[in-house]
């Protein structure tokens, strides 16, 4: 394992300190407990938005803190959900009197720790609503399982919920918009190489020189199936099929098409993927009206990508276009 780290135990604290130093115009960093909060929090009268989860998915979530998006992000250890205490502290730090929305990816650990934090916040008089993001179609949804995982679609939920809070929606309305996005966003990913958790020092899985993992999660957890490497276009088709058939997306839909890099994929490859995905959508009569391409929901240095499609309507489009000012996503200001 070769990494630009000092003591693996300090990866998160040092990275968060560096993040705070690099983006002091946007965020303040609390070190004990660890969370990242926008400089001007709490914003009086505005619904606060908090997200978080294991580290290793950067820029999600710290890079998404700022006006128009998250009020705070709570990073846990690498690939391990944060404990309730920093979530609670961040929640209190962003409560401007209008309550706080927790945006939680659907993993048992995240769900349980955010749940505890929400209970504790409520006990302290902070109104909290939680939404669960579960956009990954690689995993079959079922009442009898932990359900689908939350992956790159989370970025879109956070942007749009952030815009709703920014325009002054109340907690219930912000939560409803977030839930509407969750209902209309679907994703699926592929890995070409594994990732290495710093304190583990070993790849969490191995892939032969000609193998790829379809339906990979964002923690290097095994996916849907392991197949031989194929041309990019064929891989895109394999991911888009289950995504489009799920809601389903149909001719005439307007969508946001998001090609997300897993951290170690060259940008040329992401655009080769985008090209094919846009082509397939056009063939199906689905209109791509908004786009996003880049490393947003990563799995450390994993090579691979995910495709996310979000069905847009006028309101969601307006909220997507609204100004945002974060380290990773910025426009309109």
């Amino acid at each position, binding site marked *: 394992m070769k990494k630009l780290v000092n003591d693996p135990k300090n990866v998160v604290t040092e990275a968060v300190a560096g993040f705070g130093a690099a983006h002091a115009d946007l965020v303040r960093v609390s070190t004990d407990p660890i969370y990242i909060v926008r400089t001007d929090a709490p914003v009086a009268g505005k619904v606060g938005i908090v997200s978080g989860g*294991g580290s290793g998915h950067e820029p999600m979530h710290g890079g998404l803190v700022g006006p128009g998006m998250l009020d705070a992000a709570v990073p*846990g*250890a690498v*690939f*391990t*959900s*944060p*404990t*309730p*205490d920093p979530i609670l502290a961040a929640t209190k730090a962003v409560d401007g009197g209008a309550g706080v929305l927790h945006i939680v990816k659907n*993993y*048992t*650990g995240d769900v*349980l*720790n955010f*749940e*505890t934090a929400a209970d504790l916040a409520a006990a302290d008089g902070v109104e909290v609503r939680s939404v669960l993001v579960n956009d990954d179609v*690689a*995993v*079959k949804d079922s009442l*009898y*399982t*932990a359900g689908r*995982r939350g992956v790159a679609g989370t970025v879109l939920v956070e942007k749009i919920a952030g815009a709703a809070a920014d325009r002054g929606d109340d907690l219930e309305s912000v939560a409803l918009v977030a839930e509407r996005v969750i209902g209309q966003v679907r994703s699926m990913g592929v890995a070409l190489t594994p990732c290495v*958790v710093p*304190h*583990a020092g070993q790849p*969490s*899985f191995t892939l032969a020189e000609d193998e790829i993992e379809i339906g990979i*999660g964002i*923690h*290097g*957890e*095994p996916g849907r199936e392991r197949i031989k490497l194929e041309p990019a276009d064929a891989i895109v088709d394999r991911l888009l099929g289950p995504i489009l058939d799920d809601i389903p997306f149909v001719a005439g839909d307007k969508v946001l098409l998001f090609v997300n890099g897993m951290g170690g994929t060259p940008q040329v490859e992401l655009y080769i993927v985008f090209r094919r995905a846009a082509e397939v959508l056009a063939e199906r009569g689905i209109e791509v009206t908004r786009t996003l391409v880049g490393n947003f929901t990563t799995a450390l240095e994993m090579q691979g990508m995910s495709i996310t499609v979000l069905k847009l309507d006028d309101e969601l489009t307006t909220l997507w276009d609204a100004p945002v000012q974060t380290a990773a996503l910025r426009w309109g200001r």
Partner: protein
Amino acid sequence: MVNDTISLDQLTGWLTRFRDLVTEQVSYLTELDSAIGDADHGSNMTRGMGAVVERIQASPAGTVDELFKGAGMTLVTSVGGASGPLYGTFFLRVGTTAGPVGTLDAPGLAAALRAGLDGVVARGKAEAGDKTMFDVLAPALDAFDDALLVSSDISSAAGAAYSAAQTGRDATEALLARKGRASYLGERSIGHIDPGAASTSLLFQALAEILVKE
């Protein structure tokens, strides 16, 4: 000799021994979690139980409820992930049910452990056969209760619980996961022991060992 009570010291020793076992087996637990999870269960449990024992050593508990509530809170605030809140809730409930006492008798211990299991179910909604720590915890406590019907000896009840725990742990191999991260694998989760089931089996191994040793 029949041990029909368990002392605060022994219970403290139980947690310490559990810390030792998860630390010794950190790679084994992480390997199990690599196969069907995210390769952190070993480091999660080691970090959490390390913090628990450090806290106990820094300020020893005066009563059983203090001991376990402290352990539970420490796990909740130092582990994260799924196992942090689940093990944390387990010990919190054990402590609350045990109350501010210096010693537990056999039925007292059984009731406290049962409350812990109820807490795990309340948080995680696991059922039998979901391939989780529940599949060790539930049969182990049943075996513990059954043994107490025959004799009030905690030591032999703990032995029975440990043996049921091992059986439960091994039985998770054949199961299809329906809770936690492993559930995302569907059919591909079959053929691997559940990491949380394995660490819970170590919990009963620690209890059995600490009672035999005395």
